[in-house]
């Protein structure tokens, strides 16, 4: 049972990191369906850097940078050139997965150079239940919590966050207020890519310290679904991340508990619950505005106002 909770938090953080990135990007009005591709780029780059240098922290930084650069490619296409966001995002998934496989060809099946092991909190880890679940985790889990709080604070409590949200709600208003919509959106997409890269690095530096083509296995898509599930709020997304992370952890553990339930059906649940939330949102939207950023998915060109 403790094992289930430990795995829930650990998978939850994996999804939460990527989902926060997508949330920031969408809050600025840029839908990025390339999370899976950015994760793969982060995963392979982090692994290769750690393999080369033997230092997992360098791996993490390189993974974040690789994710950010991949994300900025999407930013260049959609924000600067005004390309269709859905098409560009889907292409980014395919490109990222393919390019990561190409880059990582020579490190497939190699033992890791370095691993980001769980943080040792000393006596705190020995507390029953809470110890292993809260204090026995890898650095990525604490990173996810910090980034989650920072995202909430910046978005809802600072002028920069207000400007970013304006770019996503009404780009022309943000523009009129003197903010650079292109700058804000590029920034958001870059940070989003970096967080997806961090999530990928979590895969190859901690969860399964190895690189293999297809290691992301659709988890980037769960992160996209998570943003909708969390109604574009960092706090609700955290709850959703724990829920979806719990489902991932249950997939294998349900069998060891002796419960006869198909693991295939279980892996469907995140998507099914996201659809349920989408339905709930649209039903509610009859009398209340949708929680989605109003300008989400649309390119902004000043001349076309």
């Amino acid at each position, binding site marked *: 049972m*403790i094992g289930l909770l430990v795995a829930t938090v650990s998978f939850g953080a994996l999804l939460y990191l990527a989902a926060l990135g997508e949330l920031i990007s969408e809050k600025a009005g840029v839908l990025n369906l390339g999370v899976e591709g950015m994760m793969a780029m982060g995963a392979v780059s982090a692994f290769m850097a750690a393999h080369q240098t033997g230092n997992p922290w360098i791996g993490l930084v390189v993974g974040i940078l690789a994710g950010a650069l991949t994300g900025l490619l999407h930013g260049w296409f959609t924000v600067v050139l005004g390309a269709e966001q859905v098409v560009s995002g889907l292409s980014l998934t395919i490109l990222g997965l393919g390019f990561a496989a190409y880059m990582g060809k020579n490190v497939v099946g190699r*033992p890791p150079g370095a691993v980001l092991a769980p943080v040792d909190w000393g006596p705190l880890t020995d507390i029953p239940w809470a110890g292993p679940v809260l204090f026995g985790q890898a650095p990525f889990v604490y990173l996810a919590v910090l980034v989650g709080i920072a995202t909430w604070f910046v978005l809802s409590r600072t002028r920069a966050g207000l400007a970013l949200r304006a770019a996503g709600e009404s780009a022309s208003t943000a523009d009129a207020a003197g903010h650079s919509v292109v700058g804000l959106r590029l920034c958001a997409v870059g940070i989003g890519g970096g967080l997806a890269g961090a999530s990928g690095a979590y*895969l190859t530096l901690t969860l399964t310290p*190895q690189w293999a083509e297809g290691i992301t296995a659709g988890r980037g898509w769960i992160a996209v679904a998570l943003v909708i599930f969390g109604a574009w709020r960092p706090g609700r997304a955290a709850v959703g991340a724990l829920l979806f992370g719990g489902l991932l952890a249950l997939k294998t*553990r349900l069998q060891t508990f002796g419960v006869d339930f*198909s*693991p295939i059906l279980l892996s469907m649940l995140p998507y099914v619950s996201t659809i349920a939330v989408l339905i709930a949102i649209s039903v509610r939207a009859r009398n209340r505005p949708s929680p989605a950023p109003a300008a989400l998915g649309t390119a902004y060109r000043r001349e076309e106002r």
Partner: protein
Amino acid sequence: MKRRLFGLLAAVLTLGLVAASCGSEGVTTTRAAFVYVGPVGDAGWTWAHDQGRLAAEATTGVETAFVESVPEGGADFADSVRQFIDDDYDVIIGTSFGYMDDMLALADEHPNVVFEHISGYLSNDTNFGNSFGRMYEPRYLSGMVAGSATMSNQVGYVAAFPIPEVIRGINAFTLGVQEANPGATVEVVWTSTWFDPVVEGDSAQALLDKGVDVLAMHQDSPAVGEKAEAAGARWVSYNSDMSAFAPNAYLTAPVWDWGPRYAEIIEAARAGTYTPAPDGYWGSMADGVVALAPIASDVNADVVAAVEARRAEIIAGTFHVFSGPINDQDGYEAVAAGETLDDGALLGMEFFVQGVIGTLG
């Protein structure tokens, strides 16, 4: 001047083409091409096949080529094969179950090319055969090592899909575990994937959380071993010697050795004597297609000796893994004393033996 040059070039090219086609008709140099489902660096299934290719190339002196990561069930497989045939490869070996129907069609299309499929069940009478190995034999031996290594008498098994090949492996492993340690159980977790390191690793972790201290697997990545290493447990890998991933956890592994079989196919094709094995080729430890990798040096010498003795008996044909009495999971007799399951029963195996904890999907 320009036009004359062009004409000359055309003539040379035509001559070249004629010469080239004459060449391929006249002097038949056998060349073998391999199509893999995964990357050769996967340390598992595809890696083992590529080692076989290299060994066959060394023994036969025949030129070989390969293409990796070719997905099943798309146009890619047939495209790669046609490309190889255009380049005068006359032996095509496909190493994934899902290539089977395409291979049969291509074999009918190209009667002069020898096709060999790994792990399927279809063949024709002339140029399309299939090969596989009795992996359950070394799995039994690896079970003996695992059964001796467990302190908690709980062994875990991370498995992909509940199909006969995997079930047979789990049963053989469990029978081996119980020969060494009659009280031990083998708990199975299904991952519903051949390859997803995160799920494989987490399944291993779920079993470790339940108190398992030895893990075996029917998966293609070494993720299970990494979890075993981190938890201080022991590990039986699969496909190839994966000790580099978990040097302390690694015990042994049931492994493939495709070299001799591939050399045999290529030699037969070169001599023009290739005929598909009527019911498919199902190679055993005696044939050398399957084997047990070296056992870790810290394993007790008595255990190693017992495994060696069994290995000799299996190779000599005096010991059969699925000889009765064998009870099924619920304690009912599955194989009576003195009986041995035939190949048909083995290939369609749909029950767990006593001592396995888990459901058939």
